[in-house]
């Protein structure tokens, strides 16, 4: 009755299901390779670097001798540059997001802004380094300073901060705005008193995630002109500086095994910093979602 013989169909079905099972196993292997590589990388770094990681390492400056070298200067440099850069990007990014979400109507200008932001997010980070070198270091005469580095980093993460803040603002229900307007509040009153507090935790989460990306950025700061050997701590915004990933890069580039080990120790410090920041972000997000329920 069926146009394919039942027996043939069933034999073939067994084969089809077997192929399907094999495919599923291959998929699981693919994922395992990805996750396995992550595990391998973390294990290798820990294995190489953990025994070099001690208090002395954290409070020492780089040295020609790996056993005496430390990351104090780089750690402080990272704190300075990322802290300042993050703050600048936060102010500019949230401002732009507020303009786009709350003020701009769907005009040509806002569409151009939107497309522009999407394209900026895809520009390779090294290009921001070139920009920083030309505009901040040379044109504005800031030199290879903490401030020039911070501004470069700020521009680099600005698109991500804008996009994350826009998402956060979009999530605030429009009934809240309407409620405010109904009471006769002005636009800015509604935005500053009602909308921003609602979206704040979520915005902060986005900014922290963007900042944690910036902490690992090496290339733009090298191109901009951060130094690779800095035996002192930055003492202000105009001070020369280095950052953690550049210090790690410098150690990796040397042929001696001793430097490779302290590079690994540096990586452990870098990863721990990232984990701490991400935990704060996850905590905030968690707290935020609870607030919404309440």
């Amino acid at each position: 009755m069926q146009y394919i013989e039942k027996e043939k169909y069933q034999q073939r079905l067994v084969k089809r299901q077997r192929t399907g099972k094999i495919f599923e196993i291959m998929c699981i292997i693919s994922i395992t390779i990805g996750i396995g590589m992550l595990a391998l990388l973390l294990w290798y770094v820990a294995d190489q670097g953990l025994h070099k990681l001690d208090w002395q390492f954290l409070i020492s400056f780089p040295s020609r001798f790996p056993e005496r070298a430390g990351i104090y200067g780089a750690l402080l440099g990272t704190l300075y540059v990322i802290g300042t850069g993050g703050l600048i990007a936060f102010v500019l990014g949230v401002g732009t997001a507020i303009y786009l979400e709350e003020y701009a109507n769907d005009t040509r200008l806002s569409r151009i802004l939107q497309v522009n932001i999407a394209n900026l997010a895809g520009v390779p980070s090294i290009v921001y380094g070139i920009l920083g070198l030309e505009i901040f270091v040379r044109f504005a005469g800031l030199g290879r300073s903490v401030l020039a580095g911070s501004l470069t980093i700020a521009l680099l993460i600005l698109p991500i901060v804008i996009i994350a803040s826009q998402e956060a603002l979009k999530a605030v229900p429009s009934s809240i705005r309407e409620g405010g307007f109904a009471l006769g509040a002005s636009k800015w009153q509604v935005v500053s008193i009602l909308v921003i507090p609602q979206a704040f935790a979520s915005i902060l989460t986005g900014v922290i995630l963007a900042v944690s990306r910036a902490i690992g950025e090496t290339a733009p700061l090298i191109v901009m002109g951060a130094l690779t050997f800095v035996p002192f701590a930055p003492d202000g915004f105009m001070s020369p500086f280095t950052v953690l990933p550049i210090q790690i890069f410098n150690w990796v580039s040397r042929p001696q095994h001793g430097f490779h080990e302290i590079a690994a120790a540096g990586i452990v410090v870098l990863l721990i910093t990232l984990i701490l920041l991400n935990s704060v972000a996850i905590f905030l997000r968690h707290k935020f979602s609870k607030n919404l329920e309440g």
Partner: protein
Amino acid sequence: MTDPQTIIQAKEISVHYGSKKVLDNVSFDIGENEVTSIIGPSGCGKSTLLRSFNRMNDLIPSAVVSGEIIFHGQNIYEPHLDPTEIRYQMGMVFQKPNPFPKSIYDNIAFGPKVAGFTGDMDQLVEESLQKSALWDEVKDRLKDSALALSGGQQQRLCIARALAVEPEVILMDEPCSALDPISTLAIEQLMRELKKQYSIIIVTHNMQQAARVSDKTAFFMNEGDNIGLLIEYGDTQKIFSQPEHKTTEDYITGRFG
């Protein structure tokens, strides 16, 4: 009128989604070469029942089906059976037309191809489209995207697609709910043709449609906490003219639902 052969037997079918019961202990027989309609208000388990006939509920992780569906003397829920084969033996048409984003030709050819059909595909495609009364409208543009067809045409394409694997039973889940009256009429006409070769089970919201197209009607209802009860089952004519139960009568005369 002689009583037809039974093709599917539902025996004590209950369905749970997680801890929520949606169908309660339903038993009835489906006749061969008949149109059986399943009617009742929203949320009384009609679609769930239909999806039990070809094990589509297996695709929902939380769904648990108990009871038996006997088809060709065999319970289709026996563990050694592959639901793929059950589905291959029954066609299904959905509420909203869901053509694949492929050409008209490829939509029809998909089922036979995966099943391992080695005969003349062109001929099979033509036959299937003819059976669903779509051939004349699309024969010159078989390579065009199916998404370019109108809603009614898309639904007939979905019927043709189901017919191409030569099922014995066609399950229809409110096939006309998204269509205009003219397309609806075309599909109803089609069902009268198709029942000569196939057995059709149709879930419908539209009682006039059930009265127009079906031979048997099953009426489902929720009563308080009892969800998904089969209230009455019998010849369509009898259900619509002299139902045995008060609730059936209330529903049919439009007093609720």
